[in-house]
């Protein structure tokens, strides 16, 4: 191999530093938030908290953990995310697996039926009217069923299934295994990477989504965490207006808000790095649709 020239080495370091700066830009907002959530109210009021907490304390977290409204939304969203992920993976598998059989009669028509839904969406109001007609408005099921199957994710799974050699399937068919049995004992055990990826996609989608709860859910017992967060951010702003007239400690509002955002983010931030090698593959499968 050729020895690197000095300019080449300089460029190597330029790229290293560039990437370092980019990484900093990614994490600084989170570090700032963490610092605020752990700081004493006096320091926050005096605008002295930058990237390190001052007057370290966990009061804000304690307050959040004692708030029944917040805990309720957290537990409900965790439950919802688990149920949605399982239901979605099941539906996606049920849709993707049959479509890899070339001899399936009606396959072409079914494919067209599915593809049309990717291009044409009836729109917000027709969807809303449908939910109303199905008596799903303010029903907790409205946060599970309407988003249970994503055609994009189905295509990712189907591409993955295509990559599993036909010969495995054919030899099982000759041995007399039913097609359902083949799915359970050959395809699913080989599909861990794509299942992990799609589980992550569905779970993140459910955890982070708030528009369906905003539009369809009027019962605040079933508000998702993100919707509660949206309301808190906007309400606390109002509280801050009130505090200027001397109603409560303004610093506390800031650290509380920060603690709530931290709580709502941590579950996902703990999971995604471990699934990285899977989702990279999944994203790539989705981009090369064929």
């Amino acid at each position, binding site marked *: 191999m050729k020895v690197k020239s000095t300019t080449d080495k300089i460029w190597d370091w330029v790229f290293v530093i560039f990437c370092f700066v*980019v990484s900093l830009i990614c*994490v600084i907002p989170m570090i700032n938030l963490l610092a*605020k959530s752990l700081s004493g109210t006096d320091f926050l009021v005096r605008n002295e908290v930058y990237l390190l907490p001052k007057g370290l304390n966990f009061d804000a977290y304690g307050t959040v953990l004692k708030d029944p409204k917040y805990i309720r939304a957290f537990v409900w969203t965790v439950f919802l995310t688990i149920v949605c992920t399982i239901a979605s993976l099941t539906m996606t598998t049920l849709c993707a697996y049959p479509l890899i059989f070339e001899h399936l009669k009606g396959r072409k028509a079914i494919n067209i039926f599915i593809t049309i839904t990717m291009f044409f969406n009836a729109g917000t109001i027709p969807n809303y009217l449908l939910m109303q007609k199905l008596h799903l408005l303010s029903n907790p099921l409205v946060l599970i069923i309407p988003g249970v199957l994503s055609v994009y994710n189905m295509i990712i799974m189907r591409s993955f299934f295509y990559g599993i050699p036909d010969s495995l399937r054919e030899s099982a068919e000759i041995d007399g295994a039913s097609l359902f049995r083949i799915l359970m004992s050959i395809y699913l055990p080989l599909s861990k990477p794509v299942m992990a990826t799609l589980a992550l996609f569905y779970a993140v989608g459910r955890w*982070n989504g708030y528009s369906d709860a905003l539009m369809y859910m009027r019962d605040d017992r079933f508000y998702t965490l993100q919707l509660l967060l949206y309301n808190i951010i906007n309400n606390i702003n109002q509280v801050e207006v009130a505090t200027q007239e001397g109603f409560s400690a303004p610093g506390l509002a800031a650290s509380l808000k920060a603690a709530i955002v931290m709580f*709502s983010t941590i579950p996902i931030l703990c999971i*995604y790095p471990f699934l990285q090698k899977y989702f990279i593959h999944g994203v790539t499968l989705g*981009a090369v649709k064929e």
Partner: protein
Amino acid sequence: MSRQAKAQNKAGAGVYLKKYWQLYVMLFLPLLYLLIFKYAPMIYVQIAFKKYSLVESVWKLPLAANHGFEYFIKAFGNNDFRYALRNTLTLNLLDLVFGFPAPIIFALILNELCFQRYKKVVQTIAYMPHFLSWVIIYSLALQLLAPNDGLVNMVIMKLGGSSIPFLNDAAHWIGSYIGFGIWQNFGWGSIVYLASIAGINPELYEAAAVDGAGRFRKMWHITLPGIKPTIVVLLIMNLGNILGGGFDRPFAFQNNLVMKVADVIATYVYRVGIKGLQFSLTTAVGLFQSVVGVFFLLMANFISRKLGERGIW
């Protein structure tokens, strides 16, 4: 058809069904789901052309004035909708101009990093913003950019400058909105390009090195042409979505001071339709958006094929 052939056909169908019936059972639920949640709403699209009333079935509603186009005419005569339409186009276009190249540039630079472990750490960190919801990103933005107690303005004021209204003034708001869009997506978007770069034949680089090509010549003459098909496909999809765009991001970022530049079609439909109950008007707006969206997608695909690139289908 002879009796024998008929019998054979029947037997064939029997054999076929015996093997394949399970697949139809599996497909039943997903197809039922699509029928109910993706096709059934299309029934309600007709209220764009009709006078909506709560009590009457949609099929029996009377046609709206002007041969049913009353609500389309009304929408385009409405200032709020015109703002929303303009903002949707502006914000999407700015996203395209600034947000689209960012992952490509990032992927090219990552590809030049020679320390593999470092590269992996940078990647993991760069994917992080993609996993945050827009509500959370907005609250991060507030913490960073708030006029008095935001980190950035605290630094600016400490250095003797005056506080900048990043989120409360129209022009600054657009900058922050686009900036956080890039922040959220540049890392995640780079995955596809990195995979595409990994697929380039390494012999090409070796040959170029023999010819004395330096780092940037290789980037320009091998890497970029190598990922061009990926860039084109993603560009088409983005162009096709120029009038689309989600609800979560603009809705989370909006505040009363910037509505004139922040209101987009999705949030307009929510505000005027679901909150304001003007169902016919907003269905017309949604239909306009969908139809134009499909048209843009077909156009972009057609143009890319004319230019000799692979389309998306």
